[in-house]
């Protein structure tokens, strides 16, 4: 037997021995659901979509107007608007491989992408598979005064639940700022993420009832966005009173709380997301900045990694 030198720390590799057990640890991967093992409580074993399950919730109860509008009107138009003949993929900054100049690099996780910490996405040419769609709406209500008056966080939570019809989750302070008397773990408000019909319902209330009546609202800023197709804007406490759930019962709302709304879309860029949202009835104002890399998408960019 000839010894072949392999660049590694392990001394057993060259001898043809395994350094660890070669049997795959399958038992870690198989999840054991105990309720299925026991013969008791058969009604708890139904899947949640089964009508016999206590978790069952009818969800296809009515027509989803916004979804209908999207599929009948917007989708084909968005395909046409976004299509460019000969469009090339714009590669994002991905994690890089090590050059393996040192044996310490052998099992290391990949290097950070160039000039940033989180890798960015590749923007693919327009196709039927990547037409922008509204995915979800998340509402975040952070009440500054909740550190002094913890009851305010409860009020904000209830307000979100009344407006959206979905149970909110509490948000807690993360940082310790002694000057503001803010400590981690303090309940500071609530957040909600809306999907499907709930999101459509909220969006139509927003675009048809609330936003048209806000005098100073001209539109969402064209500069808003996180580069990856999620657009956010805020409503102050003065604007909340236009929601019909609040307006019809103003006496029981002595204080209202403003919140931030993030519209999550599957668009690859903010510019695409804005085109989609304008079709759903949201106005945009201000000058728009389009990144230069997006504009020259007809030239072939090499994939550097």
């Amino acid at each position, binding site marked *: 037997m000839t010894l072949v030198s392999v660049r590694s720390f392990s001394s057993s590799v060259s001898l043809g021995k395994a350094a660890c057990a070669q049997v795959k640890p399958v038992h870690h991967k198989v999840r054991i659901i105990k309720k299925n093992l026991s013969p008791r409580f058969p009604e708890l074993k139904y899947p949640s979509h089964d009508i016999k399950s206590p978790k069952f919730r009818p969800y296809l109860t009515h027509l989803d107007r916004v979804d209908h509008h999207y599929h009948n009107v917007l989708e084909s138009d968005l395909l046409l608007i976004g299509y460019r003949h000969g469009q090339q993929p714009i590669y994002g900054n991905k994690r890089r491989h090590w050059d393996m100049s040192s044996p310490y690099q052998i099992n290391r996780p990949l290097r950070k992408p160039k000039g940033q910490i989180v890798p960015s996405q590749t923007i693919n040419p327009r196709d039927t598979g990547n037409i922008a769609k509204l995915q979800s709406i998340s509402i975040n209500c952070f009440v500054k005064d909740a550190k002094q008056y913890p009851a305010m966080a*409860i009020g904000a*939570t209830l307000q979100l639940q009344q407006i959206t019809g979905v*149970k909110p989750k509490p948000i807690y302070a993360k940082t310790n700022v002694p000057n503001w008397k803010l400590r981690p773990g303090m309940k500071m408000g609530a957040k909600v993420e809306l999907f499907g019909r709930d999101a459509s319902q909220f969006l139509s209330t927003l675009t048809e009832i609330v936003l048209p009546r806000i005098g100073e609202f001209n539109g969402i800023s064209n500069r808003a966005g996180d580069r990856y197709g999620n657009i956010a804007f805020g409503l102050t406490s003065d604007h909340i009173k236009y929601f019909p759930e609040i307006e019809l019962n103003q006496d029981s709302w002595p204080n209202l709380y403003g919140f931030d709304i993030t519209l999550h879309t599957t668009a690859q860029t903010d*510019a695409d997301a804005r085109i989609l949202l304008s079709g759903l009835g949201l*106005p945009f104002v201000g000058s728009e900045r389009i990144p230069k890399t997006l504009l020259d998408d007809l030239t072939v960019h090499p994939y550097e990694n």
Partner: protein
Amino acid sequence: MYTSRAAIRVVSHVKPTQQVRYKRDKTGLNPQLERIVSQLSVMSAGRKQPRLLKLCNEDYVKHKTVMKAWSHYRKAKIQENEKLLQKQYESMKEAVSELQNLSPELFEIANEHQYGKRFPLELRVPTEYPPRQIWFYDYFPKQEAK
């Protein structure tokens, strides 16, 4: 070691914000606390779950059959929509490549990027019933300030 209830009742006129699990006295909670309690009770899931439906086996099978058939119908609709989009995409591609051969100048114009394009604000999400005023005959779009 233990405080007697009588001793606590003496101090209870102070109305502390902390709740103690004793019998409520006649005056009840102070209005602020009552408000918080009612707000929390609106949000809690207690006694709000509707009764579980009790279906006989025949009804259960019927329900499952109808739901399955409906889901097939919806799936077919989605697939039809996807096919239609695919067809549109293919014909768009074909038309533009033909234009590229016929007239490169027109192709340049047709192939410009469309960033910044917006759907008109007058485009409405359709409702089940028509509005009271069907059409605004005297309407003209607002001129944008330059």
